[in-house]
């Protein structure tokens, strides 16, 4: 089963603000039964102050979908609509103490329901720019639809380019075969034989000196930096303490990934390079992510 945080479990087992809100004057509905999750968010908004007086939800979905819905209602109650609109899916994930990468879409659904509800209240049309395909890269939570789109629009043909544009494939590399298949489909060719990408530093894991280790870590981070810069962000190695690697990140991430996912991607990549378990932790982030 998933490694859910206690907060997720708590909000799933004892969800807050469930059921129909009779006096709702703003309703947002997203998802569908075929996708496996759907959420109806109901708000009671004070027409004079725009303050959200009450919020309730009904959710069809897995444990984290129900917990995310519950978290969302907790986060927005008492806020004005404009304040509420600043809430991102990362805020929901953060409120829950993190979500497994495969489950980040649950927090995205929460944020979308909120936007839909506010649009409904304001009499606006809420357009969904949501695209969903099979999850391909678990390290960075990138699905096939996005990879396909980016590959098509930018005429990409190698896994490396895909990683550069989307981060997909930049972590543990276990999704490379799937990315190659998508590229082959997009480019209408037979998949290229799997080229031994980079000899992933498999050399006998002779005990590394601390200096060698730091050099390797910083080489990996240098290698991954362009991906962060693409999104207008950056990453720096701050410190290495035993098997704990501290990094500082700035700027925003592409799409809906939280810093948590990015970190797990870096972590996978470092483990692959170093051939040993390491833990990557964010060093004090002045202002973390925010899309």
């Amino acid at each position, binding site marked *: 089963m998933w490694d859910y945080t206690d907060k997720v479990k708590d909000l799933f087992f004892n969800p807050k603000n*469930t059921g129909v809100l009779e006096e709702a004057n703003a309703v947002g509905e997203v998802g569908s*039964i075929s996708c496996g999750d759907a*959420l109806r968010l109901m708000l009671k908004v004070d027409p004079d102050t725009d303050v959200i007086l009450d919020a309730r939800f009904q*959710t*069809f979905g897995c444990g984290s*979908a*129900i917990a995310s819905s519950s978290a969302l209602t907790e986060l927005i109650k008492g806020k004005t609509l404009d304040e509420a609109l600043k809430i991102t899916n990362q805020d929901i994930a953060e409120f829950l103490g993190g979500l497994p990468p495969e489950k980040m879409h649950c927090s995205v659904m929460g944020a979308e329901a909120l936007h839909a509800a506010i649009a409904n209240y304001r009499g606006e049309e809420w357009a*969904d720019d949501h695209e969903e395909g*099979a999850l391909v890269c678990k390290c960075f939570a990138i699905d096939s639809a996005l990879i396909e789109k980016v590959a098509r629009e930018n005429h990409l043909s190698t896994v490396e380019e895909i990683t550069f544009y989307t981060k997909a494939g930049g972590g543990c590399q276990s999704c490379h075969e799937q990315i190659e298949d998508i590229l082959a489909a997009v480019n209408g060719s037979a*998949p290229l034989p799997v080229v031994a990408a980079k000899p992933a530093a498999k050399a006998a894991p002779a005990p590394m000196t601390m200096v060698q280790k730091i050099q390797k870590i910083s080489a990996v981070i240098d290698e991954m930096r362009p991906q962060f810069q693409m999104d207008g962000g950056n990453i720096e190695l701050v410190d290495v303490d035993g098997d704990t690697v501290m990094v500082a990140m700035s700027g925003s991430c592409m799409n809906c990934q939280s810093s948590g996912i990015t970190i797990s991607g870096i972590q996978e990549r470092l483990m692959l390079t170093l051939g040993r378990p390491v833990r990557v932790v964010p060093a004090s982030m002045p202002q973390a992510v925010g899309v």
Partner: protein
Amino acid sequence: MSSAYMDNNATTRVDPRVLETILPYFSEYYGNPSSMHSFGGDVGKRLEEARASVQALLGVEHDSEIIFTSCGTESDNTAILSALAIQPSRREIITSVVEHPAILSLCDHLERHEGYKVHYIPVDRLGRISMEAYAAALSEQVAVVSMMYANNETGTIFPVETMARMAKEKGALFHTDAVQAVGKIALNMQESAIDMLSLSGHKLHAPKGIGALYVRRGTRYRPMLRGGHQERGRRAGTENTTGIIALGLAADMALEHMEYENTVVRALRDRLEAGILAQVPYAFANGDPEHRLPNTASISFEYIEGEAILMLLSRVGIAASSGSACTSGSLEPSHVLRAMDIPYTAAHGTIRFSLSRETTEAEVDLVIAQTPPIIEQLRRLSPYWGANGPILTDNAFAPVYA
């Protein structure tokens, strides 16, 4: 806290007698069966006894027809790759849409990277294979047919003997993934038209990491692993001695309990299924009621999602599994349920309860008592469920994207 283990199709507990029997082969008789010294104790002899036990369980004539492998997946892969290797001019494969990934992923790979044509035979709403589509796909071009004996999600049993005879007429080899069937269905390979059969130890109270492949005498064969002379050179690699000895004993015990599985376990399963369905509206059982494993109950609960059900069941000590997407990280419900055309409203909320000879009355009672309130609780949260049942009217829940 009382608990109920209802996930025996995923894996079973190692039988305590099996465990006790193999422990000395870790600590005292750890020698390599191929070595000349005596640290192997009687290991070589025990391996041959184990082979004879598996032989008896499957009703196999010659001991050389059993090859020990590392798991069901290895047996499946070996069988198909061998069949293709010995018939290079035949470029087609037939399988079903509801196979285990051990077959489906391999077929997908062979189709996309090795240029094979794969026929995926559909099933109906009860999970029954389309014999018309099968007959139409068979030809002299087909190298191998691989059809599972019984489905791991619904328990539906395929008419593999008939299908094997049909394959024979076209000169195609017939393999069956019998991982879920072995130990629950009496088998007699001596009178069968099946050429190859896969089984896995951990589904019948042996440990994980041991499997076997039956290959009918006279069937040409190519090994997947090449190396030492073990298993007559057909599966190189030092034998998993403890696993093999365990599988042998587990096979003996499975044979002894065959009757029990098909009477007592079946009755427990039927009681569990009926007990839940009597209390829960908008729920139904999946699979072919006429031809189904005695231990498997697949129940769809409409308008709610499986992972949420499993989490609440788990909290009251009940272990089951789901055909839902969310447990696997993909967004699609199980390929088996979709192939059966189970509507999305139900497929996402499908739970598999799988019993074994260790299942007790008390466990079944616990499940019957605990499941209905959990379903009710989740339905109260569901936007598709109103005060008196599902919301089906026009102004029902209609979200922005579908």
